[in-house]
């Protein structure tokens, strides 16, 4: 009987293994065939293949860059500029989409008729209109609605909003590194403090006002560097300059271009609708008995939400919300339509055109999006695991 079983196992394993190996082999062969064939045909048509162009001078400028860049830098640098811009708009988008999504999701469950209906209408309208149209809408609506530079909307004479962008003061630091280190120190301190506080609570039932203490450290420590550490901060306020009879521009501050504002707005408004539905599903997914049980042992409404409902709801919310974060990041490639210099516009657009290296550039861009998405997935999976039920 034993022997018979053993034999059966082996043959079964082989049965599983052989088709798998064959499939992998087939896929590899197809890829090799495609590669060789593409190379041959490119050779026949006089198209060279290679990544040497990345170190060549790009000779085009980009309107908005987080790092030093102009046309004298290389294509590789232009790629980096585009990548950082993609990451920037994705991070901003994810941040606001999450806040808005959670707010709307909770609002939909509100007892207040007006609030829940408003949230419902918001979700139904914004998730059912194609994103590209929303991007165009926010961009051109913003451009049409905002005043010309000379009639800028003025925020207390330090910040200005007009059709060319939002001008904010530039921070000029002295001893910035000390200030920065103090923030890191504060974060580490808070981490240990909260660990200590949890231990106190679990072991001795002592409640420490950890929130206010953390707040104090977070602001107090950096403040100390100002008072005794010689850190100082001054602002360079944007100034109106006249370029010609009717052309004015603000110079000196930091410019947040309208393309970034409208793209981030469109992406977060759109994605927030899906996150809101995830949040609603998550909260509804927690058994009503849990809340009643929590209330019966005397927890407050806030404590019920924070300690009982949310930890369980998060398990339902996180996986589909990861999808939405990935979608938002990939959707940011629509930026090209409104001239926001993301990786698609800068690299898969201008650089592709100037060099004509379609296959190389598109593969790099695809790999970049793949890596971005995988990084988000890895992070969210880690967070999901952290939030999952830990069976003891």
């Amino acid at each position, binding site marked *: 009987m034993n022997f018979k079983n053993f034999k059966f196992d082996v043959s079964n394993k082989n049965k599983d293994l052989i088709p798998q190996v064959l499939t992998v082999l087939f896929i590899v062969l197809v890829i090799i065939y495609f590669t060789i064939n593409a190379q041959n045909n490119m050779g026949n*048509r006089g198209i060279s293949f290679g990544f040497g162009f990345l170190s060549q001078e790009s000779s085009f*400028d980009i309107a908005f860059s987080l790092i030093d860049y102009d046309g004298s830098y290389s294509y590789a640098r232009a790629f980096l500029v585009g990548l950082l811009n993609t990451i920037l708009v994705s991070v901003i988008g994810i941040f606001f989409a999450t806040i808005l999504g959670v707010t709307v999701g909770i609002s939909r469950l509100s007892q207040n008729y007006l609030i829940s209906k408003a949230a419902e209408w918001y979700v139904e309208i914004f998730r059912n209109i194609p994103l590209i149209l929303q991007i165009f809408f926010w961009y051109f609506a913003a451009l049409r609605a905002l005043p010309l530079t000379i009639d800028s909307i003025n925020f207390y004479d330090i910040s200005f909003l007009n059709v060319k962008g939002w001008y904010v003061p530039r921070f000029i630091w002295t001893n910035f590194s000390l200030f920065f280190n103090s923030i890191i120190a504060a974060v580490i301190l808070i981490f240990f403090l909260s660990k200590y506080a949890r231990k106190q609570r679990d072991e001795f039932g002592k409640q420490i006002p950890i929130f206010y203490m953390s707040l104090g450290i977070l602001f107090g420590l950096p403040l100390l560097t100002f008072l005794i550490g010689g850190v100082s901060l001054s602002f360079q306020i944007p100034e109106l*300059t006249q*370029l010609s009879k009717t052309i004015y*521009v603000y110079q000196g501050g930091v410019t947040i271009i309208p393309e970034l504002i409208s793209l981030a707005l469109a992406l977060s408004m759109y994605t927030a609708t899906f996150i809101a539905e995830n949040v609603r599903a998550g909260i509804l997914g927690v058994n009503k008995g849990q809340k009643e049980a929590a209330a019966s042992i005397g927890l407050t409404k806030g404590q019920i939400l924070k300690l009982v409902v949310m930890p369980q709801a998060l398990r339902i919310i996180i996986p589909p919300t990861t999808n939405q974060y990935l979608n938002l990041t990939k959707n940011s490639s629509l930026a090209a*339509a*409104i001239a926001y210099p993301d990786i698609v516009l800068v690299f898969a*657009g201008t650089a592709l055109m*100037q*060099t004509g290296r379609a296959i190389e550039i598109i593969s790099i861009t695809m790999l970049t999006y793949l890596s971005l998405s995988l990084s988000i997935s890895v992070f969210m999976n880690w967070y999901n695991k952290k939030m999952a039920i830990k069976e003891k």
Partner: protein
Amino acid sequence: MKSIKTWILVVLASSLLVACGQGGGGAGSKKSKTLDNTKKAGFVKCGVSQGLPGFSNADASGNWTGIDVDVCRAVAAAVLGDADKVKYTPLSAKERFTALTSGEVDVLSRNTTWTLSRDADIGLTFVGVNFYDGQGFMVRKNSGINSVNDFKDGISACTNTGTTTELNMRDFFNSKNIKYEPIAFEKADEVVQAYDAGRCDTYTTDKSGLAAQRTKLSAPDDHKVLPETISKEPLGPVVRQGDSVWEDIVRWSLNVMIEAEEYGVNSSNASSLKDSENPAIKRLVGAEGELGAAFGLDNEWSLRIIEQVGNYGEIYKKHIADTNILPNRGPNQLWTKGGILYVPPAR
């Protein structure tokens, strides 16, 4: 949306490369694979712009017109005997070369600037120039800017991505040592809208393009094109490298239209000039010599071009002058009349 299209194109490109196998190209052989395929398909595959009045623009019922379109029509008249047998593929600046090298189109006639790197580096061959253009700037009339010398640090300029315009703009502002804000859109329509809304102070592209796009602004008369030209933009049709017969067909289809104007041959008098005294004219209308045989066509190929499409002067008048885009021919005048249109003789 456009970016997705490009990706599809690239995928298409690679699959086509695979589909064509080793047989693609046919370099150096006397036979032309592109010509054979075109005859088999019954139409010329022509890549055009997504809408540039005067050059390649579709009307409400989808009929394409313009001087770039007429190059493809001329090729169709020469090869297939009917100028209407053309399949147009509208392409963005970004997609155009991939579409050509992958075989989705066989002639790219899309206001494309002839440059060394494009000609030599990416498997393309420029066959001639059908419009001599140059990059200029458009500004608002009330801006107080009357010349490019009035530009100052901080000026913002809208333009298209994926064109030589972006590079020229940088060269220009760098040479003047002016800091500028470049705002580059994928499609011309968005450039127009953004400029119209005041997002940028100036709109820069080829002057013919400026003239054409100005008509799309909400108040065209409030804008003007500055007098300076900051670059050379010889625009012309492009074919794939490696099919010299096809290359010759496209080149000479363009050349005979210009030569026809030079000799006063036009669409209405062409057939009556068969017994002209002038041997050059007789060659043009196919009454003398065996010119078509050189690239596998019959002898009346050039007559069909002139009759069905017209000579260069007729085309220019119809699409560019009468539409008020650029009423003055400027450099796009025959060399005999003070312009720089000069083509090798068709003999």
